[in-house]
């Protein structure tokens, strides 16, 4: 076999030699294909594994950590929450609608594979500059694709985030997260065991979709990926809805040994992973696999990424029961092989062996690379940029209007209004607040969820930025009245073969790990997406943090908008922000630089615990995390949500723009009933938490005084119009 064969499949020569060594012979074409997908970053994390080990993955509530299709955490009453996030960046860059749609379909399968009923989806999106035509095309397509799949299958898309930055121009990020509910005694796993048990393919027929999609997803996006367009898969939400119902019905019967969806690398990865987890082998007869197209080769069948398919291993003798359930839902279920005891993946076509590889070799013997990391040149330079000479903007009114209308801060209603965020009739806090909350039927509980990452911070300081993303996610949950529970992460970075990129990756993960440890939110799973580059330019390092939490009693769920005139406004945590890495600096001074503030994790935890305590005590009417745009924007967001104005008096010797628009971690804006402010501030002091009573909800305009002089006066209607108009103006 010529070297170009394995090279084209994405294997390097050392990896090929390693295969020969493991097998004790030269692999044939099919076998090389199988190794190439199993040993791609996407499937075996060969570049990221050593770093991922940094994450804390244990905790009293963790029922399932990394390694399965999704993580599981206990929420009491014999119930648990199942959640996972996944990227579909490159497919979305090439075909935004189908790329995003199949991304949603894939992550939903990961959750119901575990036996859980999906209760919500989230989407974390990043695109290039909004005024660019290509960006508009991508936004329209991606949003329509997420809506098209999520709405049709009937799972509400309740939250997410959307950022615009030139670095994502050619390589948008589309991260989809799914959250499900399960009873402890109904957890299913992706395990194949029990010699002689049947292996069944269920769901859609196999076609030539997305062959090599997995390796494709791990190769830098370039001109020729235009050619790999055959890799485009089309989603069928209707088929997946049937598959979802059929699988949950099947798992409830208790006759399932193992079940796993066919995601990236299709049949190959699900079969090998299931066998490997069960310390078993499999013998498969490929001619039995139902196909959509004629003349498919074993290679194509093994590597096809046709959607809406699952691999099921039931107890021997229950094949007909499986068929019965799937037939009821109008789906196929076909026995294609058996579990064996010899640990070999043995693939046959019409009785003749076409591939024979040890399952463990494909999973556990995959190469692991300890990549070199090097601090990039820009780091110190950006960090040491002196911002003190930045000229203050005279007109704070103008600045606030500009910021509130800037694409990163402007209302995302244009997006989430296209998502059915209420189907299921359990969405208690809809998109538009810090975190969404979904009711757990039959209990007083709710599940709060959010995705967060300010990738500008991560770029300027990967370690601090990684920690900040975790802290913000937790803060968003706390603001909605939830106790943060656990994390699923989607690590979107550039080409790890570049030491500077790998440094970003490593530092960011260290930050994420330390924050997760400090805040008691273990990582239960995630996804790594590397090679997010176009023609050599990497995206901003983007470790998206998906986090879930529990609202013990929905009676004290909280949202970000002000509730009533006269309520007193309190800033908890810290008052002034910094210009470093702020949206203000980027939007008003066209600069992305500075030494961003680090999050003091011990203090962060204190502030969050204090806030949650006050919320639980029923003392808080609104709570809002102070993020992009700083104090003024956060208060403005609480105004536009309710139409109520506010009067603020800030006394501080910070420069005015830093005070109003500067950014810093660990800041929360509360509103509390009239007369209760002082009480809260005192309570905070007792716990070593700083708090300032800065004003009250009043009238229909936002008026802010700094050290006695009025800096801002804007009608809430005017703010609201500016805030809402940006996306429609660009996208309609």
């Amino acid at each position, binding site marked *: 076999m010529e070297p170009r064969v394995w090279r084209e499949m994405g294997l390097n020569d050392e990896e090929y030699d390693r295969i020969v060594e493991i097998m004790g012979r030269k692999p044939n074409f099919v076998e090389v294909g199988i190794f190439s997908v199993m040993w791609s970053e996407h499937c075996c994390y060969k570049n990221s594994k050593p770093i991922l080990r940094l994450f804390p993955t244990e905790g009293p509530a963790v029922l399932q950590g990394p390694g399965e299709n999704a993580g599981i955490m206990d929420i009491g009453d014999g119930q648990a929450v199942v959640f996972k996030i996944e990227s579909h960046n490159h497919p979305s860059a090439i075909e935004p609608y*189908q790329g995003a749609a199949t991304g949603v379909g894939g992550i939903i399968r990961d959750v119901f594979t575990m036996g859980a009923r999906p209760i919500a989806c989230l989407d974390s999106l990043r695109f290039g500059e909004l005024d660019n035509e290509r960006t508009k095309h991508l936004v329209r397509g991606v949003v329509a694709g997420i809506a098209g799949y999520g709405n049709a299958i009937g799972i509400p898309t309740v939250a997410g985030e959307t950022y615009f930055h030139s670095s994502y121009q050619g390589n948008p990020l589309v991260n989809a997260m799914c959250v499900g509910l399960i009873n402890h005694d109904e957890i299913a796993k992706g395990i194949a065991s029990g010699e002689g048990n049947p292996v069944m393919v269920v769901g859609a027929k196999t*076609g030539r*979709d997305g062959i090599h999609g997995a390796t494709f997803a791990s190769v830098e996006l370039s001109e020729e990926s235009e050619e790999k367009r*055959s890799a485009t898969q*089309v989603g*069928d939400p*209707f088929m997946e809805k049937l598959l979802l119902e059929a699988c949950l019905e099947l798992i409830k019967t208790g006759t399932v040994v193992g079940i796993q969806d066919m995601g990236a690398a299709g049949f190959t990865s699900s079969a090998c992973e299931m066998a490997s987890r069960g310390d078993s082998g499999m013998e498969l007869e490929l001619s039995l696999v139902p196909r959509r197209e004629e003349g498919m080769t074993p290679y194509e069948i093994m590597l096809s990424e*046709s*959607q809406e398919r699952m691999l099921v291993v039931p107890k021997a003798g229950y094949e007909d029961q499986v068929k019965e359930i799937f037939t009821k839902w109008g789906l196929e279920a076909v026995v294609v092989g058996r579990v064996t005891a010899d640990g070999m993946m043995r693939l046959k076509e019409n009785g003749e062996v076409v591939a024979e590889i040890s399952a463990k070799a494909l999973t556990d013997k995959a190469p692991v690379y300890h990549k070199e990391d090097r601090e990039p040149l820009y780091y110190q330079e950006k960090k040491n940029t002196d911002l003190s000479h930045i000229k203050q903007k005279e007109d704070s009114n103008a600045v606030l209007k500009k910021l509130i209308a800037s694409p990163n801060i402007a209302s995302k209603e244009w997006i989430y209004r296209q998502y059915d965020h209420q189907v299921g009739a359990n969405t208690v806090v809809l998109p538009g607040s810090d975190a969404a909350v979904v009711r757990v039927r039959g209990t007083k509980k709710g599940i709060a969820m959010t995705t967060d990452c300010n990738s500008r911070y991560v770029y300027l300081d990967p370690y601090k930025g990684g920690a900040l993303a975790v802290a913000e996610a937790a803060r968003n949950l706390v603001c909605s009245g939830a106790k943060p529970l656990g994390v699923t992460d989607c690590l979107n970075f550039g080409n790890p073969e570049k030491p500077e990129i790998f440094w970003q990756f490593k530092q960011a993960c260290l930050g994420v790990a330390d924050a997760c440890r400090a805040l008691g939110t273990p990582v239960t799973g995630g996804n790594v997406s590397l090679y997010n580059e176009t023609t050599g330019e990497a995206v901003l390092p983007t470790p998206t943090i998906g986090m879930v939490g529990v609202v013990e009693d929905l009676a004290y769920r909280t949202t970000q908008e002000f509730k009533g005139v006269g309520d007193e406004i309190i800033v908890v945590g810290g008052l002034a922000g910094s210009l470093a890495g702020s949206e203000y600096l980027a939007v008003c001074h066209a600069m992305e630089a500075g030494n961003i503030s680090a999050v003091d994790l011990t203090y962060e935890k204190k502030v969050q615990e204090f806030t949650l305590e006050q919320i639980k005590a029923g003392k808080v009417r609104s709570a809002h995390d102070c993020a992009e745009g700083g104090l003024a924007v956060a208060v403005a967001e609480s105004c536009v949500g309710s139409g109520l104005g506010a009067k603020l008096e800030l006394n501080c010797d910070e420069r005015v723009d830093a005070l109003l628009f500067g950014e810093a971690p660990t800041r929360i804006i509360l509103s509390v009933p009239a007369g209760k402010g002082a009480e809260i501030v005192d309570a905070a002091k007792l716990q070593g938490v700083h708090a300032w009573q800065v004003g009250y909800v009043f009238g229909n305009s936002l008026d802010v005084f700094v050290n006695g002089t009025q800096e801002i006066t804007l009608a809430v209607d005017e703010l609201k119009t500016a805030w809402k108009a940006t996306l429609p103006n660009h996208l309609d």
Partner: protein
Amino acid sequence: MLSARVFVTLKKSILDPQGSTIQRALKSMGYPEVDEVRQGKLFELKLGDMEREKAVQLVEEMCTKLLVNPVIEQYTFELLED
């Protein structure tokens, strides 16, 4: 007056869930004769008065630029006098 009819269909290798669902429906309604259904789009464009060459080139352009998604779709078109 020239007008064009553009026929856009999914490439052969691309899955057509809509078409196959319709095929299954027809089957269950008693039309087993139908082995396969593929659904596509049809665009009718009024072009006003112009030479056919111009029209052909124009339609080609509009197809590649807007009407057709080359990643998953293919197209043909015809010109009509009316």
